[in-house]
């Protein structure tokens, strides 16, 4: 019977191997690992086939044929060991070791030839065995064959073990564990051959098949069951089943011995009672057993139960976020030996993720914000399972990562991300830091951690909602800035801390009414939101932006003196122009802010606000006084626009007459504005300056074209005519009501700062000098001269930048305002001056 069962098992093995070959071939028979496994399986088929034939002929009682098949089997056994080693080597891609495999192939070939020609050297005869199978006698070459085979097996074990110790990847490590189990099984199966009583039983074949299935499983499955978990569960259930069977057997014996008198219904009833009792008794026993095994094989699993018991205490109250983070961190440290842990929490307001870590103290430590469009956000959001950083890095969307972002991601040194979900909503991730080159996390640990994180998600969600409510109570819903309540709270807190001096900037949107009137109230709301966001970008980390009411905002700066507050105010004013440009707001659509600053060493919040408010009023008055900040009504604007267009046409006509200065006004405007901005001028001052720059040469209309284009030196009369152009221009502009102010700037734009009428170039008569020349005129004068020097003229080529700088340095404080000139030189040096290209004159372009 043993022979028959043995034959059946071998036939079954062959079928299993064929199925495995088919499955691998269908996946890919060309991949090197697959190819080597297929070869290994083919060798197993050959071995099992010869073994099957041995069984068949043993059953038929044909020792001669049995011997022949045994001899044929000899190379397949050695081949099995060598090809198993080849599988391990190909899996490891160790090409040095491949040479040993090639040597092995020659050995297989040599053994095959030897066993065909001189089979007696391996197996000279067969003997009958009590199982009915004929067993072979070993010849002189069998020990050598054994040595070779075991050497290859030993090498396979050595190589795998060496890799296993170095391996830092969970998946690879688990694969290696399975392959090591495969090696062990082969070794175990081989030793069975030496036990005489087991000769004839197909145990070896069973183990080898098991090994083949394990190899297949290890190489082709991506999500391998943790081997420890596998063993633990297996052992646990094995012992449990054994105990149950033993208990049942015992009960039956007891019933039959003791309850014999109560046969029939009574016996049945007793049995039921006993079984019920046993089942009740087994549940705690099983739990205890399970817990015992967990403690031995999977401490993480054991810890999970404890940790889950602990987190049930969270239900008692809604914990603030920081307390919750602290608790979770403590639990992870206590039960999983992980410290610290990080929390990547999704912001409810903007869907961005924020990376937190609990730190001792009140505030959490925010490491970084990962924006909604960050590839990591995309990847994490779709993930249901724990993710390793290595998984993240092979996601195709990660290709969109910036160099800096990649650097940040790597510097975070996170290894695994555990999603926290409540129903389908992603709350965030619990992140575990990388442990460097130490042993990687086991799957069983990851599973426990994943379960733990799933449980805490709901508490995090509650904490988030709680925080959101708190936030809502102190936030202005329209702009997202803080509200007055927050200001009062913070002021009180800071006063208690005596965090003086405290400063406050009060700001309102000067032209807010304009947006509401022209674009509707929704546009007005948008402006408020944008301004709040702009102010938030300009402030320091300890400052607060508060919407005070209407279009007024307050920037509260605890522990800030007047100078620092002023610096913040200046930064806001400086950034405003750029910000407007980035927002695409130009001309009258530019958002303009008025800023009032106040600092105090003591006092109440009302005092502080009152002071800042007064400052703001002062500024408003001063603006009104200068008439620079006139808020135009629509009809004035329209008139101004038309007049401007007319005068621009005039300017064009002037420029067309002087081809060499074509585009000059436009360039002067660009330079003047850049200098003005650098000199911290803003808002309407810039608009006035821009207009003045465009119109400054309008007086050339009175200069004959031949003089303008003259290449020879100018006569005295010519010079006089040209020197008249500021006056003529100013007179023309003075006729237009809206250009009156510009008229004054144009009139003096050729004044020398030192007022020296005999210097060269001479001042055009105006009798003004130094600070008496309006600031805008001084800027215009500098810009005008700069453009003249940097562009070609009929009588000379453009000067080099070094020459220009030299001249500017020489004329600083003489022809030009010294401070402004130095400012311009520093802009040139720092490469901050944007220089428009010199336009081609109309005739050059052939118009």
């Amino acid at each position, binding site marked *: 019977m043993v022979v028959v069962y043995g034959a059946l098992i071998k036939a079954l093995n062959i079928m299993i191997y064929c199925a495995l070959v088919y499955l691998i071939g269908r996946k*890919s028979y*060309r*991949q*090197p*690992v697959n190819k080597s496994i297929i070869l290994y399986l083919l060798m197993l088929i050959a071995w099992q086939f010869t073994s099957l034939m041995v069984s068949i002929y043993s059953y038929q009682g044909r020792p001669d044929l049995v011997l022949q098949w045994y001899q044929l089997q000899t190379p397949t056994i050695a081949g099995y060991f060598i090809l198993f080693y080849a599988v391990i080597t190909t*899996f*490891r*891609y160790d*090409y040095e070791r491949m040479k040993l495999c090639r040597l092995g192939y020659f050995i297989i070939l040599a053994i095959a030839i030897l066993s065909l020609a001189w089979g007696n050297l391996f197996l000279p005869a067969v003997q009958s065995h009590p199982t009915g199978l004929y067993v072979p006698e070993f010849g002189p070459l069998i020990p050598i064959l054994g040595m070779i085979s075991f050497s290859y097996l030993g090498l396979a074990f050595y190589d795998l073990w060496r*890799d296993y110790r170095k*391996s*830092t*990847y969970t*998946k*690879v490590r688990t*694969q*290696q564990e399975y392959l090591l189990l495969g090696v062990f099984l082969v070794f175990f199966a081989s030793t069975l051959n030496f036990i005489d009583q087991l000769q004839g039983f197909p145990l070896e074949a069973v183990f080898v098949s098991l090994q083949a299935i394990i190899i297949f499983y290890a190489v082709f499955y*991506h999500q391998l069951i943790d081997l420890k978990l596998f063993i633990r569960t297996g052992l646990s259930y094995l012992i449990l089943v054994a105990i149950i069977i033993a208990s049942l057997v015992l009960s039956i014996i007891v019933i039959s011995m003791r309850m014999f008198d109560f046969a029939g219904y009574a016996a049945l009833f007793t049995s039921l009672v006993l079984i019920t009792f046993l089942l009740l008794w087994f549940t705690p026993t099983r739990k205890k057993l399970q817990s015992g095994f967990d403690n031995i094989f999977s401490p993480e699993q054991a810890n999970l139960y404890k940790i889950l018991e602990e987190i049930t205490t969270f239900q008692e109250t809604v914990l603030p976020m920081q307390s919750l983070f602290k608790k979770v961190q403590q639990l992870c440290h206590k039960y999983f030996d992980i410290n610290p842990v990080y929390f990547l929490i999704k912001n409810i307001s903007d869907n961005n993720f924020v990376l937190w870590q609990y730190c001792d103290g009140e505030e959490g430590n925010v490491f970084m914000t990962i924006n909604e*469009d960050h*590839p990591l956000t*995309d990847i994490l959001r779709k993930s249901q399972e724990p993710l390793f950083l290595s998984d993240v*890095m*092979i*996601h*195709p*969307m990660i*290709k*969109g*990562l*910036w*160099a800096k972002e*990649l650097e940040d*991601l*790597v510097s975070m040194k996170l290894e695994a991300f555990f999603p926290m979900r409540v129903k389908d909503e992603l709350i965030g991730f619990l992140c575990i830091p990388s442990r460097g080159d130490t042993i990687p996390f086991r799957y069983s640990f990851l599973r426990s951690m994943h379960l733990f994180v799933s449980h805490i998600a709901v508490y995090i969600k509650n904490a988030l909602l709680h925080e959101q409510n708190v936030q809502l109570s102190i936030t202005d819903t329209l702009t997202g800035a803080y509200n007055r309540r927050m200001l009062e709270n913070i002021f009180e807190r800071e006063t208690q801390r005596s965090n003086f001096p405290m400063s406050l900037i009060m700001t309102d949107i000067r032209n807010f009414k304009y947006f509401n009137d022209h674009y509707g109230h929704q546009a007005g709301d948008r402006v408020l939101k944008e301004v709040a966001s702009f102010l938030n970008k300009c402030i320091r980390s300890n400052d607060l932006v508060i919407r005070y009411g209407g279009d007024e905002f307050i920037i509260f700066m605890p522990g800030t003196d007047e100078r620092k507050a002023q610096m913040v105010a200046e930064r806001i004013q400086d950034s405003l122009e750029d910000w407007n*440009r*980035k927002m*695409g707001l130009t001309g009258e659509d530019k958002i303009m802010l008025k800023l009032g600053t106040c600092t105090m060493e003591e006092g109440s919040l009302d005092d502080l606000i009152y002071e800042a408010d007064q400052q703001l009023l002062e500024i408003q008055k001063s603006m009104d006084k200068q008439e620079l900040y006139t808020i135009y009504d629509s009809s004035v604007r329209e008139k101004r626009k038309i007049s401007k267009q007319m005068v621009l046409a005039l300017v064009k006509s002037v420029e067309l007459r002087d081809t060499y200065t074509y585009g000059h006004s436009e360039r002067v405007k660009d330079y003047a504005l850049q200098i003005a901005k650098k000199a911290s001028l803003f808002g309407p001052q810039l608009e006035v300056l821009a207009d003045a720059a465009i119109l400054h040469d309008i007086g050339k209309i009175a200069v004959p074209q031949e003089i303008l284009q003259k290449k020879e030196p100018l006569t005295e009369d010519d010079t006089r005519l040209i020197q008249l152009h500021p006056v003529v221009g100013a007179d023309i502009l003075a006729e237009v009501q809206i250009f009156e102010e510009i008229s004054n700037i144009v009139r003096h734009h050729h004044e020398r700062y030192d007022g020296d009428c005999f210097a060269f170039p001479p001042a055009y008569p105006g009798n003004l000098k130094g600070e008496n020349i309006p600031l805008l005129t001084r800027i215009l004068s500098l810009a005008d001269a700069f453009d003249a020097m940097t562009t070609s003229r009929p009588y000379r080529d453009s000067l080099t930048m070094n020459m220009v700088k030299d001249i500017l340095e020489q004329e600083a404080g003489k022809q030009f305002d010294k401070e402004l000139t130095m400012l311009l030189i520093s802009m040139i040096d720092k490469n901050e001056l944007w220089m428009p290209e010199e336009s081609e004159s109309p005739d050059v372009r052939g118009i």
Partner: protein
Amino acid sequence: MEVTARQLFQENRQDEIWDHYCNFLELSTDEAMKIQYRLLEEQLSVLKKSKLGQELLAGMTSDSIEEFRSKVPFTTYKDYAHYLLEKNEDDLPGDAFYWVHTSGRSGEYRHKWVPYTKRFWERAGRYVIASLIFGSAGKKGEVVLEPGDTIFFTLAPRPYMSGALMVDSVLHHFPFKFLPPPEIAEEMDFFDRIEKGLQMSLTEGIDVFYGIASILLSIGKHFEGGSTDRKKNLGSLLMSPRALARLIKGMIVSRRKKRGILPKDIWNPKVLAMGGMDCDIFRDKVIHYWGGNPIEGYASTEAGVTAVQTWNRSGNVLIPDQNFLEFIPFAEHLRSKEDPGYIPRTVTMDQLQENEIYEIVITNFLGGPFVRYRLGDLVKVTAKEDPAIGVCLPHIKFYSRADDLIDLAGFTRLTELTIWRAIENSGISYNDWVVKKETDQETPVLNIYLDASGKLSKEEAEEKIHQKLAELDSDYSDVEKMLNLKPLKVTFLPEGAFQRYIQKKRAEGVDLARLKPYRMNPSSDTIKTLLE
């Protein structure tokens, strides 16, 4: 942080290679566009910090991509020459990690130098590996390449982009074995290198062939013809059992099939990777000689790898993370050619239309210097996606050099590929050819200068090529039908004209890339030299 195949093999993570190198195929067009915009945003911020970038982006006032596409002008190498020819590294947007060069078409510059940043360099190498993986794969996820695989490499040496990328970057990623080793190969003449490579591959085998199709073809012909050199070398081959075994195997296969020995009888390359437009022309012959279906790609020195072919050998899949890709529709391209002042409109990857022709415009990512750079290539969109292999990205095919289109009486625009295919299909035995558009009595004529090797009259040759051209290009056949004009003329060159031309140029010390004359509209001097 980006892991190389070399590392993955070392860490036994070889089953991740496909994901690391080929996962871009999983992207949808929307996702690819997201990557395009993100990386462009990064590139703009990098450009703004450099002198070159500031110069190129002078018209931009914000960071918006719309403004970038509408305000920043198209560029050519001329716009970069000052920075790149003198290697002014301080003015570039990214740190130059590797300088490669190309000879350029116009010959205006001896070499057009191009800097690659480390990221750009590694990314380009990654896509070369992806291309080789695709070339060897029979299906999705299959990685047949393994460490120690041999590469028979016949492209230009370092610092030409093809040589530099292949040798240094690819070796950084994958432990290939080069035949002959690059250090030795670069000391040798191009043809000696091939000879040496062939000899070595008899012993070592060929796992990857990387070169131009004509080399593969000439090796095939060489074998089919039964070269006497081979017989001469037989003695030395006896010293190498592996070479001998390979030859014996080849001889057995060829005897069994009753034909001459072919390369495919001796070698069984995993990948035949080919560059150049002859790939399509010679595909069938290469398959006949070598057994494998060659893979192609679309790359350039300025843009790195722009598109790669996958395992099913359909068009080249566009790569989203090396360059910001813009495409000028063909009509716009023509208009801009006629009126250089006209600024053509561009479309992005997600707006491409199937079967349409576009001129390709690139902006380097990852710190590269080129901004809205006109590569001068026309490509045809063969498909917007390939559901058969589950790829959702657009597929393109090289169509022509923008300057190489020959316009015939406004009826048709012939490409080099069309003319070459017509000559090839005509069955005329030829060594090489050039074509020039000439006028004969105010009539446009397509004059093909042919170095033919068989006995054939001029009229016969003209008729044969004319017929094939008409078959391949219906618009061409309309020229005859509607104008009653046969615009084709064949001029036979003296036999070996091209060989002599190459020798002459080599003697003059001309750069490797300019040894051969341009086929489309070469200069009159070139024609004159060929006719000598």
